[in-house]
């Protein structure tokens, strides 16, 4: 079965109309080299400390070729593949957010001179332009969700805009999904729709190892032309489609999105929130790894002499007490109210706020929750709970 997210709200970015091409496996280094020649700092998946990280890479040899992972609630293990697939894994604890919205950003430095006058520096730090290698469909959707937050609201985040506009996106269609993936339910993947510069699909059949490559922008098209690739045949396109269908079939989790928002609005007092509060440790990992979570806190610090002050922005989490602290106390004093806030925001209030759900079905929060709490299971339980109360409806 083919699932295409055509009915999902999205911006229609300019998509160069052109036929796809074939990039030979051994021409991948040439593609990466061409990006480096254009002045891009490559960022892509790479092995680190027992997981597949997203970090700066120098070239193809840094990619986790022949590696994959096992994922389930609260559990992740790196595994060797039997083949030499370049993109034969899914998503790890990092997301592109680390580069577009860094975990810590210095916003302002203020210095006081001997006369007592202040000089304030709120300039943006010089940053490289990034080429993101291997962005999955759910991840690109997550970036587009964050665009709404940082670019499309009344206040534009200057730093985000610079990084985002400069970034060259080499997307990858997933040909394998994890048991924690539910992009099919969320209509966010595994097939890319728009927003990339280039999109690759890895084709491995017998001795054959190639990539179907297509451009989504003019600058992507220029790169393909420069590499002088052979045009794809219909059979190539079909081979790629079949490979992506594997990832559709392998989507390990499911959610019923019909009426999801209204269900959650009716369920503020559902007893399931007490149940999840017994398991949730309020550690905040789910928000840190989520590619759409955008909350930050701002911290001011000064040196002992009172001569220099800095203002730093840091990733924050709605699972902390301080997050909702106002004069007199925290608005969400317990795990029940905090988990409810987090999940209801992701799946319901986000839709009112930004026009799309705040969840793209990447499954990170399931895998990296040390308690193994599963957002898909919690939603299903809330639905069951209501059905039990009303005898189904």
């Amino acid at each position: 079965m083919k699932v295409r997210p055509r009915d999902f709200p999205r911006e229609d970015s300019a998509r160069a109309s052109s036929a796809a091409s074939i990039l030979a496996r051994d021409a991948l280094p040439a593609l990466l080299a061409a990006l480096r020649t254009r002045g891009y700092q490559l960022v892509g998946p790479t092995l680190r400390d027992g997981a597949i990280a997203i970090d700066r890479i120098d070239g193809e040899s840094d990619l986790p070729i022949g590696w994959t992972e096992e994922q389930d609630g609260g559990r992740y293990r790196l595994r060797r593949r039997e083949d030499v697939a370049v993109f034969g894994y899914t998503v790890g604890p990092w997301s592109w957010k680390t580069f577009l919205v860094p975990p810590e950003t210095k916003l302002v430095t203020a210095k006081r001179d001997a006369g007592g006058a202040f000089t304030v520096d709120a300039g943006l730090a010089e940053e490289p332009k990034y080429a993101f290698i291997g962005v999955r469909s759910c991840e690109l959707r997550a970036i587009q969700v964050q665009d709404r937050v940082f670019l499309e609201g009344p206040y534009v985040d200057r730093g985000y805009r610079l990084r985002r506009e400069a970034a060259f996106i080499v997307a990858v269609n997933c040909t394998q999904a994890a048991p924690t993936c539910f992009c099919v339910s969320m209509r966010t993947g595994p097939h890319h729709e728009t927003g990339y510069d280039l999109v690759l699909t890895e084709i491995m059949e017998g001795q054959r190892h190639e990539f179907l490559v297509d451009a989504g922008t003019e600058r992507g098209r220029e790169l393909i032309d420069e590499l002088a690739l052979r045009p794809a045949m219909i059979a190539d396109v079909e081979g790629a489609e079949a490979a992506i269908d594997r990832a559709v079939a392998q989507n390990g989790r499911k959610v019923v999105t019909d009426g999801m928002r209204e269900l959650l609005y009716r369920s503020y007092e559902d007893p399931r929130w007490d149940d999840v509060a017994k398991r949730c440790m309020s550690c905040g990992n789910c928000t840190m790894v989520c590619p759409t979570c955008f909350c930050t806190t701002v911290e001011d610090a000064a040196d002992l002499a009172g001569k220099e002050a800095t203002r730093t922005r840091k990733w924050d989490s709605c699972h902390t007490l301080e997050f909702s602290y106002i004069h007199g106390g925290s608005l969400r004093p317990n795990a029940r109210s905090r988990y409810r806030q987090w999940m209801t925001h992701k799946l319901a209030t986000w839709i009112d706020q930004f026009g799309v759900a705040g969840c793209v079905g990447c499954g990170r929060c399931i895998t990296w929750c040390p308690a193994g709490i599963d957002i898909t299971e919690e939603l299903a339980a809330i639905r069951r709970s209501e059905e039990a109360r009303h005898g189904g409806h």
Partner: protein
Amino acid sequence: MRTVKKPSVAVWKFASCDGCQLSLLDCEDELLAVAGAIRIAYFPEATRAMADGPYDLSLVEGSVTTYHDAQRIQQIRNQSKLLISIGACATAGGIQSLRNFADVREYTSAVYARPEYIETLARSSAIADHVKVDFELRGCPISKHQLLEVVGAFLHGRKPQIPSYSVCLECKRRGTVCVLVARGEACLGPVTQAGCNALCPAYDRGCFGCYGPAESVNAPALSRRLAEAGLGVDARMRLFRSFNAAAEPFRRESEALEQGR
């Protein structure tokens, strides 16, 4: 610049290993700024100067373990405008609070040749169990960065930026792969207060809980997960029973595990 009288600071030691006081001496780069900003009135570990009180700020290291300590802390409080307790001993009773779970007389007779010379309390307790404490700075040992932040906040009359959320936030911000999820290591990070910048997981070890319980702790939930990861009852009990053994949520969990084993 204005010349104001430098605030006087005293540093006191109770039952402890001195590690936290050393954090103050370890502020090499910042020592001149510290010395320029405050007047050390009493700090036997560092200087012979022993000015009498009252003091603007007292930093108190160590836990109360003797009758003498229990009286001394009252006098210190009376002489101090502000009192900040520093380190796991002063904020939770320290590793020596293991005695709280046993009979201290058994310990003294096992350790000392003449136990009858030893006069000690049955329990090791935090400074805040005895006197009003204005701020508790956690850690075993405390972080020099946080110490400077607290002293700086005191000097400038602002609230110190000391987070009370979990170590996991620091772990993720610095990009460490979770040792619990990716390797099944026993890690106290989800229930432990941040402050160390998630040091141990960055070196492939689970968090030992040096900074004590985070603001909102669900120790039984972590315990269950560690059991699923294959950690036995005894190992879990010991995990919760270390530098912050007597901190309430950790104490409750280790006692529950002890009773249930």
